[in-house]
């Protein structure tokens, strides 16, 4: 499936990527080692693994914020050379610009690209999409965690990125807000066909959302296993299939943890 996928503009291919950091004592530490992964256009893939397994590093390389030490990353057949509005990024911290109102945060991408004039009408649509049109003129410090994360989502989507990279975006939310946000992200994903790569610590979240789960091991970060999730959508969090997968992955992670 690698070949047809690489032609599509929103497919991702990662080939034998390594990333080393220099430790304070001058030695090299591998954060990501020998990672190869192909993601088809419109696929939802979750990266799961203990902390320090290089998930975030991998995501930053796909975003173009960090360069790999060796190996190649391609989006739609084109090598990733730096950040681009084609690859949106969302962190665990919403990182809203506190000096801008909600509306101005959402339209930041349009302003940055100098296309606000032509696309101003879309801003309102995105605000409605995340249900925050009544909070458009409020500053971020007045928002709750869930609301702030929804603004961050709208901001990341405003440029219509082909790929959306999500670095534990729901990690800081309470359980109920979190489940609602998962549905919201899924709804957007189904409606827009954006390729999504989601880093998470939460196995339930990974099973609930993804087409495939990539399990990584720490130090150095390597791909341990890739699982296809064939459960029909919309998924039931307490269906037998769901629960079976859950215990299977938990076992695997435990095993992975002991090896490392």
């Amino acid at each position, binding site marked *: 499936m690698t070949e047809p996928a690489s032609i599509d503009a929103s497919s991702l291919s990662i080939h034998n990527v390594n990333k080393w950091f220099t430790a304070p004592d001058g030695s090299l530490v591998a954060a990501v080692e020998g990672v190869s992964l192909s993601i088809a256009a419109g696929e939802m893939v979750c990266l799961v693994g203990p902390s320090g397994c290089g998930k975030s590093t991998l995501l930053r390389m796909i975003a*173009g914020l960090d360069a790999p030490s060796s190996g190649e990353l391609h989006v739609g057949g084109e090598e990733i050379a730096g950040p681009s509005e084609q690859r949106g*990024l969302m962190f665990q911290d919403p*990182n809203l610009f506190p000096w801008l109102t909600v509306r101005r945060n959402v339209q930041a991408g349009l302003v*940055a690209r100098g296309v606000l004039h032509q696309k101003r009408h879309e801003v309102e649509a995105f605000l409605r999409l995340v249900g925050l049109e009544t909070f458009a003129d409020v500053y971020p*410090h007045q928002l709750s965690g869930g609301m702030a994360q929804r603004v961050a989502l709208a901001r990341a989507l405003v440029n219509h990125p082909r790929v959306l990279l999500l670095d534990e975006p729901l990690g800081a939310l309470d359980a109920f807000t979190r489940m609602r946000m998962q549905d919201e992200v899924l709804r957007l994903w189904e409606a827009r066909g954006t390729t999504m790569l989601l880093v998470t610590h939460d196995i339930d979240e990974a099973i609930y959302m993804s087409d495939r789960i990539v399990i990584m091991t720490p130090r150095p970060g390597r791909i341990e296993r890739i699982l296809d999730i064939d459960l029909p959508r919309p998924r039931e969090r307490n269906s037998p299939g769901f629960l079976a997968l859950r215990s299977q992955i938990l076992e695997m992670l435990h095993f992975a943890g002991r090896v490392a």
Partner: protein
Amino acid sequence: MSIQSLESPVRLAFQSSEKVRIRSKGAWISFLPFAATLLALTLHRLLPNGQTTLPMTGRYPLFLEWLLGSTFMLAIGDLLFWPVRRWLRPKAPLLTLGIVTLCVWDLVTLKLGWMPLPYFPGPDMVLRGLVDQRRSLLLNASQSLLLLSTGYAAGTIAGLFSGMSIGWSSKARYWGMPVLKVIGPIPATALIPLAMAIFSSSFFSGAALIALAVWFPVTMLTASGISNVRQSYLDVARTLGAGRLYLIFRVALPAAMPSIFIGLFMGLGAAFLTLIAAETVGVSAGLGYYVRWRQAYCEYDKVYAALIVMAVFFSAVMTLLFKVRDRILVWQKGVIKW
């Protein structure tokens, strides 16, 4: 809807009960300024003068009579009108203290003669100085304002520019930081001889000194604000398609604003100091010059009058900067307390 209908009567009841409470309790507080004025006027009229070297002008008792009328009207207004009460109640004790201070000042100088003339004139003489010299004081204040704003604006612009360069570019930091570290800590006043040698006009040498005094803190805090911008803000902006200009002016600069304002406030303090020093030494205009000139003639009443004008002038400028900050940093409300 049910919440609203529940809430509004409760809120109304609470508001009106609060009104009643304020009305019934502590109505005497609003009469305190009036009482203090009455005391000050009575003492001024009844006690014989201890300092008798100068003729009285009667301006101070006239002022007190006017104050007596005003404070009385305020106290009555307090009883009758809610907005007056809301304004006056919190300020009444402070106002009273101010009037008592005037009274004590009058006592220890004019009435009891504990403080020697001509160095410590009473409120009557200083008030006369203020009134008689109002033209001259206003003229000098406006000259000070011109010098201050020229120097402050130049220093701020230069400081923002150098601070942003040093904060953003590592090359600018390499070359700029040593210069900043060596020149910055020199008090601008120590460079008065140098400035006078460089600029033929005393106005420009004064403005340059003020600019230098402002430049250092503004540069320092702008640079630190810019270089401490959260990396994730910049990362997010880059994935949104931001170019260099957007990153500098739309992310780093607003993120650094709280720090920049600390620099602006420090710079303003330094500017006041340098302004007065420059006017006392070289510039032949402005409030600092006026104070030196009057002191040379031992006219201390006018010196104090100028000091009062200076206090009002400086705190007005300071308040203006606070207002600008509140407007620009409105997004910080509730995040950081000053």
